[in-house]
């Protein structure tokens, strides 16, 4: 098995941190609304795993695409995107349909990495990172 690119590892760890933090927040919201149940926890676990796995696969696809011919890259990324989307849909549908996890707790974590990315410029600015020195997330350094 090929070793993971350090940039991919760093980015996935950053996304995983955000997914974890926002998952805890979501559980707290369910508790406050008195809607918490094991189904919520199960749904959150499945959704978080799918979100992190999806992000990791994006990173692997992009890292592998580097150095390949441009026309082949475009096709490979398109195929990867379709596969990941259908895989995510299948896993979420199976979790909700067979394991009876909470629907909302299953699908909401899919958007957590996006929220993490939205906050990224703010965090980088706080840590003194600029557009001229964007070395990726150094939260885990």
């Amino acid at each position: 098995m090929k070793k993971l690119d350090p940039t991919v590892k760093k980015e996935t760890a950053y996304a995983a941190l955000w997914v974890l933090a926002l998952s805890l927040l979501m559980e707290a919201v369910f508790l406050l609304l008195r809607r918490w149940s094991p189904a919520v926890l199960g749904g959150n676990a499945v959704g978080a795993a799918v979100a992190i796995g999806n992000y990791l696969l994006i990173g692997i696809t992009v890292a592998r695409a580097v150095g390949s011919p441009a026309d082949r890259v475009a096709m490979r990324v398109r195929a990867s995107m379709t596969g990941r989307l259908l895989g995510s849909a299948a896993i979420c549908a199976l979790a909700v349909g067979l394991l009876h996890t909470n629907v909302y707790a299953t699908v909401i974590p899919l958007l957590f990495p996006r929220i993490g990315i939205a906050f990224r410029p703010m965090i980088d600015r706080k840590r003194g990172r600029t557009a001229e020195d964007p070395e990726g997330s150094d939260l885990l350094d």
Partner: protein
Amino acid sequence: MVELAMGIMLGLCGVGAGIALIAGIGPGIGEGQAVAAACEAIGRQPEAKSDVTSTMIMGCAIAETTGLYGLIIGILLIFVAPGIFSGVLKETVLALK
């Protein structure tokens, strides 16, 4: 009559979920073009590989959010909407009786 309405409603929920998943096509094409352009950029400036890869991963994740919105709408249409709509339908029928 109620059974027919229920069947039409369930069918339309399935069709709606299918249409929602079409949202996954656009981001795929966009991502492909963006990554291809990034590969050309790395070819011109190999020393910027780490920066370009990092930016590309984030860019792909952002582009993919559109597809995920469609996926979420599709899942909600399949698992949540039928329950809500059938409840509304039953209440309407009971109110009419």
